[in-house]
């Protein structure tokens, strides 16, 4: 062992010590003024004079009353301002607070990871974004906390998100797809093998991986596979045979399974068929479109020919015919089919 290097890091670096330094470096504390819990470092420390202490003793209830009034007014103004505000201000940078079973809340910031144990869970809260409950045996990393976007990464486990931030501001990455909140409540699960599922209980969620996108409305679910991205969404009340066949088609493109899906589709399964229009080609797409046309009253401009060549306007019109919501609101986001 090179004791000189161990002592003052001079001389020939000791390989073993250098390796340990390198390995442990990420744990090193980085002192920065914003980590110092003192308001406005650089300003003189205020001291409470004896006169103020005396005044507090004499007038404490009046001061308390005045303070309470200020707080009440502040809350009132806060509600008014938050109601008027469409987007968050810089000064309102969302601060996630994390709560564990019975522990005091702690602030989390980008770069940190919440890892729950076998029997423990945690809850993240932000006044501006929403609430995320983290189930046991989960690992959730905070990637970004910008006012335009809150980006988390669910590496494994389950979260329940209830989001009140404007659409597209809350994003959760998983090993196989990215969820983009469009104003909703949902449950996201990631298994040990990277496969996942997304169940939407309220609102909408977009599930994206590369060029593949799924839009999942309330009451629907979508599976995702490592390396394959989001599967085709379907409503949770669909027949089991329908769900199994769809899963098989998503897994390996089984054409016979696709036939089962087409045959078993109900009117509301138009959602699934619409997604399949951009996940099939040629003859298969034609069969999907034929069934879609039987179940959904499509406008005359949506023709087989347009659908076969993936015409975006025709696909938009087909979507609108589902009456799940107009495409205009999410067209602004991005479209890649």
């Amino acid at each position: 062992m090179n004791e000189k290097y161990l002592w003052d890091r001079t001389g020939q670096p000791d390989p073993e010590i250098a390796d340990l330094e390198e390995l442990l470096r990420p744990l090193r504390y980085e002192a920065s003024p914003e980590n110092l819990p003192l308001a406005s470092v650089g300003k003189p420390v205020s001291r409470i004079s004896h006169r103020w202490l005396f005044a507090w003793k004499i007038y404490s209830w009046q001061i308390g009353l005045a303070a309470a009034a200020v707080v009440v007014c502040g809350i009132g103004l806060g509600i008014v301002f938050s109601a008027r505000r469409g987007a968050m201000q810089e000064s309102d940078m969302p601060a996630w607070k994390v709560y564990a079973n019975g522990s005091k809340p702690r602030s989390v910031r980008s770069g940190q990871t919440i890892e729950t144990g076998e029997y423990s869970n945690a809850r993240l809260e932000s006044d501006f974004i929403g609430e995320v409950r983290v189930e046991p045996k989960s690992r959730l990393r905070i990637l970004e906390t910008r006012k335009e976007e809150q980006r988390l990464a669910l590496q494994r486990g389950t979260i329940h998100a209830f989001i009140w931030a404007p659409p597209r501001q809350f994003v959760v990455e998983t090993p196989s797809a990215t969820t983009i909140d469009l104003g909703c409540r949902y449950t996201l699960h990631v298994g040990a093998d990277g496969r996942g599922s997304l169940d939407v209980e309220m609102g909408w969620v977009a599930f994206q991986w590369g060029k593949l996108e799924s839009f999942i409305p309330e009451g629907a679910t979508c599976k995702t596979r490592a390396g394959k991205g989001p599967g085709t969404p379907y409503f949770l009340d669909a027949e089991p045979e329908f769900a199994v066949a769809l899963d098989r088609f998503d897994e390996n493109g089984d054409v016979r399974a696709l036939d089962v899906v087409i045959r078993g589709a109900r009117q509301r399964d138009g959602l699934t068929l619409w997604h399949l229009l951009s996940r099939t080609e040629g003859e298969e797409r034609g069969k999907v479109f034929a069934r879609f046309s039987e179940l959904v009253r499509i406008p005359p401009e949506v023709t087989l020919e347009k659908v076969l060549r993936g015409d975006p306007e025709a696909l938009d019109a087909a979507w609108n015919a589902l009456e799940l919501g107009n495409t205009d609101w999410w067209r602004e986001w991005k479209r890649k089919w």
Partner: protein
Amino acid sequence: MVAPTPVEVHSEEPAALVRAAQRGDRAAFGILYERYARMVHGILLARVSYSEAEDLVQEVFLRAMQQLHSLRDANAFGGWLVKIARHSAADLRRKFRPMFELRDRGGGVWPDGQALEVLTILQRLPKAYRETLILRLVEGMTGPEIATRTGLTPESVRVNLCRGMKLIREALGRESRHE
């Protein structure tokens, strides 16, 4: 309210900074924080989890600021801060153990499981060795820096480093044999 007299920091000597901070100069306290934060973090890391240490650093400096007026010998600031850090860690252990682990990224690199495993091994060493070794290997302080900041003699630090390093090598050897 009586406004304190703003204090100009003319010297960057620790004792002068401490005296300036005692007079209410937050800039001076800010400099002390920047100089001693790693030491405090290392002391804490010898006792609590990685995520707890991060939060506790702030608490230690808050306590230090509140109690700074009681420090009579400005030259003893480092040792005094070490005691506050040790007490804070002990308080935390008494109060609660978290139900979840909050892990942090430092310097843009995510500490992988191996780093946290080695930290756990370091935390099992005798107290004197683990503090000094964490300050050296994790916080990147040199032996002379550790001595200056903590108030330990250079000889003690040198001995702690050498003996601690020997123990950590043995422990790591055992760990790798178990794998």
